[in-house]
């Protein structure tokens, strides 16, 4: 069974690569594009991809994850120290010098504040990857969505496309700006380790594991404590599913989670347009040549 699944996976990949190769080689580059990359209905992501489950009810807002992330990724030091609580006075987002940030919310339906950790959600079919004209993004079998600064020319379309407002840009760099975002600690997890933020969390709010196991774990938690949690795992289906999953005691829109995004991967939104491209390419020249032939001897009157 495992073997068959593996075979299927390989088949999908090589077909994908083949199609891409053909598309480029066949001049499809000028013409348009292959819609067949992530948007293959049968491709439901890498079966063993890892993920993170955040239990928002456990998070105490200590910001240890921010500190661990900063150190693990050798990012520049923070403007205010990591134990400073005043940062919660405004809502922050990941920036060029912070892969992750924690925000505090005080929803009416909860008697204690809730903390939301924001970072790249590592979508199963990432829209940043679908948006990138130079294929700077890769979804790895481990689950990480990785960015390659060596090919990026800084168009920032990935930022427009990301429904979670994650990729941050180095606006202060004049000559070598790049996109900055969480890598799900790819370097660590590919060697069997766990991400720095999960390791550092003293409250057990962040759990690392196989995404499929995490969904079971989350369901169990919700089933055992129906009064504590609302019955939803955020990230299970949003934009085709994400590697980061969240369970909460209050509705997610009270914590600024986007709630107006489709359950289909976003790349599906452009599929119709891209599949119309070959039609224009074949129908227009025929039609226009016919028009030309029909009118070429027409006199100058209207």
């Amino acid at each position, binding site marked *: 069974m495992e073997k068959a699944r593996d075979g299927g996976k390989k088949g999908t990949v090589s077909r994908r690569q083949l199609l*891409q190769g053909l598309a*480029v080689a066949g001049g*499809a*580059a*000028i013409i*348009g*594009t*292959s*819609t067949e990359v992530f948007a293959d209905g049968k491709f439901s992501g890498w079966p063993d991809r890892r993920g993170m489950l955040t239990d928002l009810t456990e998070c105490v807002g200590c910001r240890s994850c921010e500190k661990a992330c900063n150190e693990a990724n050798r990012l520049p030091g923070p403007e205010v120290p990591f134990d400073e609580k005043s940062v919660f006075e405004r809502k922050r*987002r990941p*920036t060029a010098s912070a892969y992750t940030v924690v925000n505090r919310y005080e929803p009416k339906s909860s008697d204690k504040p809730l903390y939301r950790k924001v970072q790249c959600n590592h979508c199963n079919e990432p829209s940043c990857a679908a*948006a*990138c*004209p*130079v*294929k*700077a993004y890769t979804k790895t079998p481990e689950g990480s969505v990785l960015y390659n600064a060596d*090919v*990026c*020319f*800084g*168009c*920032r379309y990935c*930022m*427009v*496309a990301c*429904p979670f*407002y994650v*990729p941050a*840009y*180095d*606006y*202060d*760099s*004049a000559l*070598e*700006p*790049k996109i900055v975002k969480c890598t799900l600690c790819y370097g660590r997890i590919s060697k069997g380790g766990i991400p720095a933020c999960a390791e550092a969390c003293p409250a057990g709010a962040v759990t690392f594991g196989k995404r499929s196991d995490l969904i079971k774990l989350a369901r169990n938690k919700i089933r055992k404590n129906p009064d504590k949690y609302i019955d939803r795992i955020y990230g299970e289906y949003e934009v085709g599913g994400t590697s980061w999953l969240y369970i909460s005691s209050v509705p997610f829109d009270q914590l600024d989670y986007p709630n*107006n*995004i*489709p359950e289909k991967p*976003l*790349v599906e939104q*452009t599929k119709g*347009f891209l599949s*119309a*491209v070959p039609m224009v*390419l074949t129908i*227009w*020249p025929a039609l*226009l*040549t016919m*028009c*030309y032939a*029909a*009118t070429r001897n*027409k*006199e*100058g009157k*209207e």
Partner: protein
Amino acid sequence: MNDETIAKAESFPARFTDKLLMGMSWAEYSKKLITPFNIVAMIILCVGFPLIGLRFYKGLAAVTHSSNEYPWSILLGWGLFAGVPLSATGYVMATTVYILGYKKYHPLVRLGVLTGFMGYLFAVIYLLIDIGRPWRIYYPMAVSYGPTSVLFLVAWHVSTYLTVQLLEFSPAILEWIRAQRVRKWAILITIAMTIAGVILSTLHQSALGALFLLAPGKVHPLWYSTFIPVFNFISSIFGGLCMVIAVSTVCARWLRDKADDTFLSNLDPLTVGLGKAAAVVMFVYFVLKLIGVAHDDNWALLGTGYGYWFLVEIFLFVALPVVTLSVGVKKNSAGLVRFGAFHAIAGIILNRLNLSIITFNYNLPDHFHHIVPPAKEALIVLSIITFHILLFRWILNRMPVLREDPDFPEEDH
């Protein structure tokens, strides 16, 4: 012809300066350059160009309001998203004359093609200032392919179409430098280039809208529609037609001495003709916009603040110019048609800014703060517009665009 002129014609540097200075001496030419318009233009450039330098010295953060939430600012909102549909002039005019056979519009073809070429050239200039590493702009074409991306398609098409338009305009350049034989070749490929131009334009005009299909949670639902590609394509057609009316109006006013009688005496009837076509296409667009609201069942949203803004856009900036253009055509009044054309152009700019900036991220707090560009960025845009006009005028002054060169009469294509 005396010996002196023959010698002058044969020495290349002399011929070159002669072409460049339009037959004047350096002293005469520099004296002629001092006009109020040029002085104002120079002041704008002296402020704007150093600011562009600042962008490459201190990064985008120093001059633009691009941010992590709003990656695309007025540089692209104006320069690319509004600039490209208004540069549809080349393909609409070439199609009218060479494909549909309306040969009486011939006096406006070259102006249309030049306006289009310049528009794309400057769209690329805005892009080069805005993107992070402009020296990698060819990467989608040569280094790393991202074929699932709509922007990949835009990159290929805009660059290819820029080349196509240069070839389409090349007869004028070749006539200017008197390269008879090469010009013959350039004329031969007119039809092929026109057809290529229509295909490329259809695809990238619509693709510029399709870019936003990937951001369904971010663009306001009244502007987010599966029809965005169609809206953008259709509006580029009347955008191109109205731009030809606008540019020819401006040329007939300020570059009268560079235009020939055919151009000047035909301009009014041709303007009315273009206005008629624009009104028809624009009406189709108006109906499509309403169908778009119906298709997504967004009627309830029309009662909100953004809904009123949407109504302003489609009634005051689409329906109203349609009425003006129609009345102008009915009364055979070129003046009224011109008024309607300028109004329609404003409508296109408003629509593209709505899509890319004003309604983008409508649900974020502080949204209204973000949509106002900072002074430095506005000055950069102003200086590029000024440079655009100067370069445009420079070409119109020298090359046979508004006039036919008597040595190269119109040939059948």
